[in-house]
């Protein structure tokens, strides 16, 4: 097992930093500037990145990393393509699909389980997904529609797709029978709108064979070729960031809340706490899971489903696509 870091106390880290500054006069002289664009607005989904930044893990790796917040109007892959960012976070499916038009590679796979789900209200009487036949279902655009579409295709039912906005208002008002949601986000949002868990009937994609690994760090092939150390360092620091976040959830929440407030987006701690807990569930689904690794079988399963569903004509080879840590 390769280790990217040694556990250091904060004091030692600070000492190291101070020594570093003394030995290399001129701040940032030895630092390599880099940027990463996240695929959504600041939230606990990215707590590992924020902690790595706030705790100086990136700097320790010699990176002066700028974290760029994403959002509904930002396509991370576009930013990679046009050079607005050196790195981007994306779903595995997104990365695979982009690969056909843009040479992106995965340098670290963080979310191992799919958090995507379809949520219905218990009183709507949807007991199986087949009951959604000819019903309005809120489905997000872009990569979020891959799994649902593949699912309904497999089930052989047709549904009425209602493009889902960033809010759950339509679902709450019964404008759609089912809504897409992320376990760490929308599911809890519904709870925070006063719906009880008993009032909701969730269908998890992770319980089907459409269990797609999600968030991973991507970069362009040329960046990976030119700066392999930088890529490795980014992933290593992010892994440390996640480990730190899971060990210090309150600090991590502080860090997340700070960024949300800065971006002026609705921020509440209870929701972010739920999200952080769920991130731990899907980043470290089992006790011994090593953070940041993409497993080949996961990769191949996703590729074949994408091809089967017609989203992808040809899948890349695993070693070409993945240059992250291995077990």
């Amino acid at each position: 097992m390769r280790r990217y870091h040694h556990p250091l106390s904060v004091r030692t880290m600070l000492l190291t930093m101070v020594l570093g500054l003394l030995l290399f006069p001129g701040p940032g002289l030895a630092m390599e500037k880099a940027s990463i664009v996240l695929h959504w607005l600041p939230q606990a989904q990215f707590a590992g990145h924020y902690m790595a930044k706030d705790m100086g893990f990136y700097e320790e790796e010699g990176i002066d990393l700028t974290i760029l917040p994403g959002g509904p109007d930002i396509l991370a892959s576009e930013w990679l393509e046009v050079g607005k960012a050196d790195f981007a976070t994306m779903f595995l499916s997104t990365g695979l699909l982009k690969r056909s038009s843009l040479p992106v590679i995965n340098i670290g796979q963080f979310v191992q389980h799919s958090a995507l789900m379809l949520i219905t209200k218990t009183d709507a009487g949807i007991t199986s997904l087949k009951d959604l036949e000819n019903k309005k279902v809120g489905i997000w655009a872009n990569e979020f529609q891959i799994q649902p579409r593949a699912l309904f295709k497999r089930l052989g039912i047709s549904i009425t797709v209602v493009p889902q906005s960033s809010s759950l208002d339509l679902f709450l008002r019964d404008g759609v029978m089912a809504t897409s949601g992320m376990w760490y986000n929308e599911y809890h949002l519904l709870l925070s709108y006063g719906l009880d868990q008993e009032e909701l009937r969730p269908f998890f994609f992770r319980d089907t064979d459409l269990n797609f690994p999600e968030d991973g760090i991507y970069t362009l092939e040329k960046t990976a070729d030119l700066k392999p150390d930088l890529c490795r360092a980014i992933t290593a620091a992010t892994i440390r960031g996640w480990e730190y976040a899971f060990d210090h959830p309150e600090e991590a929440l502080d860090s997340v809340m700070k960024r949300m407030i800065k971006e002026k987006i609705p921020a509440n701690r209870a929701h972010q706490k739920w999200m952080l807990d769920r991130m731990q569930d899907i980043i470290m689904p089992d006790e011994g899971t090593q953070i940041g690794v993409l497993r080949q079988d996961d990769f191949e399963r996703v590729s074949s489903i994408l091809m089967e569903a017609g989203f992808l004509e040809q899948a890349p080879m695993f070693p070409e696509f993945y240059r992250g840590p291995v077990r």
Partner: protein
Amino acid sequence: MSKRHGIAFKLAAFILSCAFVILVVIVGYNYNYSRDIILRQAEESSRNLARDTTGRIDSVLITVQKVADNIAFSLEDATLSKEEILELNKRVLANNPEIYGMAIAFEPYFLEHDQLFFAPYYYRSGGRIAFNMLGGPNYRYFYMDWYQIPKELERPVWTEPYNDEGGGDVLMATYSVPFFRTVDGKKVFAGVVTADVSLDWLEDMLEEIRIYDSGFAFLLSRHGTFIAHPDRNLIINQTIFTLAEELDSPELRSIGQKMLAGESAFVPVDNVFDDTERYLFYTGLKYGGWSLGVIFPKDEMLAEVRKLSKVTTLIGIAGFIVLAMLIIFIARKITNPLHKLSGAALEIASGNLDLKLPEINSRDEVGDLANSFGVMRTSLKDYIENLTSTTAAKERIESELRIARDIQMGILPKLFPAFPERPEFDVFASIEPAKEVGGDLYDFFFVDDDHFCFLIGDVSGKGVPAAFFMAVTKTLLKVVSEKGLDPGDIITKVNSDLAAENESCMFVTLFLAIMNINTGETRYANAGHNPPVYMPCGGKPEWIPPLGEPVAGVMEGMEYTTKTMTMHPGDVMFIYTDGVSEAMNPENELYSDERLMDILTAMDKPFAPELVKEIDDSIKVFTRGAEQSDDITMLAMQFCGKCDK
């Protein structure tokens, strides 16, 4: 033993404890009742406050709704040109100052077949009306809530309030109305009209609602998001449910669900926000699906009640003290004369009947007691005076009787040994007079040189008559005896003399014996007297059998016989009156002849003077100081000569 408490103490203790209980009950009831009143009033006023507030908010919302509804209605007219639509939009905004911005957004390619987006938006900016055409690759409005929800639901909606970044971070809410047009004979969805309202005034309005010091009002959106709250951090950021989650309060969550359901209630919310107790009134608004909550801090609501209770308690305590002082004063007023009377009673008891009684003028039971006490003292004084004179008279008589008694006793021979020069016999007698003058008599004397006469008698009755009768009897006996007659003749003679003048029918029992002191021959006669005891020297004592002859002094002409017996040297004859055998102990038991005989039998070598003393001692032991009712008279005659044994 319990401690002694005075009347004042008892009175004060009982009344004050009673008063204390009453005080506690009054204060408690008063507190509870006032609290209920305050709570009812609070509920009522919160209802009014909420109704007033929701009314004001609703009136703004309905105004906006009406405008947007009207525009939507006019947009169903398919003949409107693009220019007319823009003009309409602009004019509406200009004429409706409460509307912040208005958009008229069409379905893709609806108005112009080559135009994906058509959504003019007029809004206020820096005091002027600005214009913007919405839509573009980065703003696909079809997927915005304000467009999508009314489209899917086919009815007007209020969107969830949001912070409008373009408008300078103003809290906004949008009312969206779908409008429809008829295309190919079918009614199809054509687009929506939106009216944005700034909710700034909302916060100001709610902030004006100051309930006591720390009470406040808050407003929730349809989905529980805070639209207005004194803590601005909660606005938009939190729903009541996330707040409940942070506060770990299932109670608040449940309240939130009821609020969103549009219910209305006045409920206590203790320890939800912090550890103070509060009340919450909530009610739903007519429009927008919003609900209003008003928080009342219980402490502050009840501050007046607490103050009232405090004052009531203070008044109560003051009253309590006054009452205590009054009771002690009254009790003292009652007990002081009693104390004085009690002291006077003690003084009177010690004999001071001339004591001046304490001055007690109260016209009540104590006064009556003092009067009665005075009367009692006077009566007592009179009675004692009476008693004193009576006693004096009685004492004089008693003194005379005593003298008579002394004289009576004086005539009995008292000097022992009576005849020391005569060794042939020994005689000893004693008389123990009872308190009253009695009628016992004894005597002994020589008839001639060889014959010695001894006698004992008991006159019936008591008092002076008995004493006289006894004196007469004794004198007669002595005179008659000296004539040398036999004892029977002596008694016969004395009897007839006594009976001759005996109108009061008094009588006397008599035993009279005459002993030849040389031979011991003894002749005797007995007139109804107890049988004497003959105690032969060394032998067993025995009764000298009675002769069955009656008492003397009653029957004139009665003849008495004489018996003869012989006493041997050492023999003793013991004669006595019934004062001996009928002596009584405190249990009223008689000394009895048997006891007398037993004691005499137990005597070893009797000697006359000692014998009498011994019997006398045994009587005293037996009676144990009980009052003597009769004279106790004894006489022992011992013949000496020469005792053979």
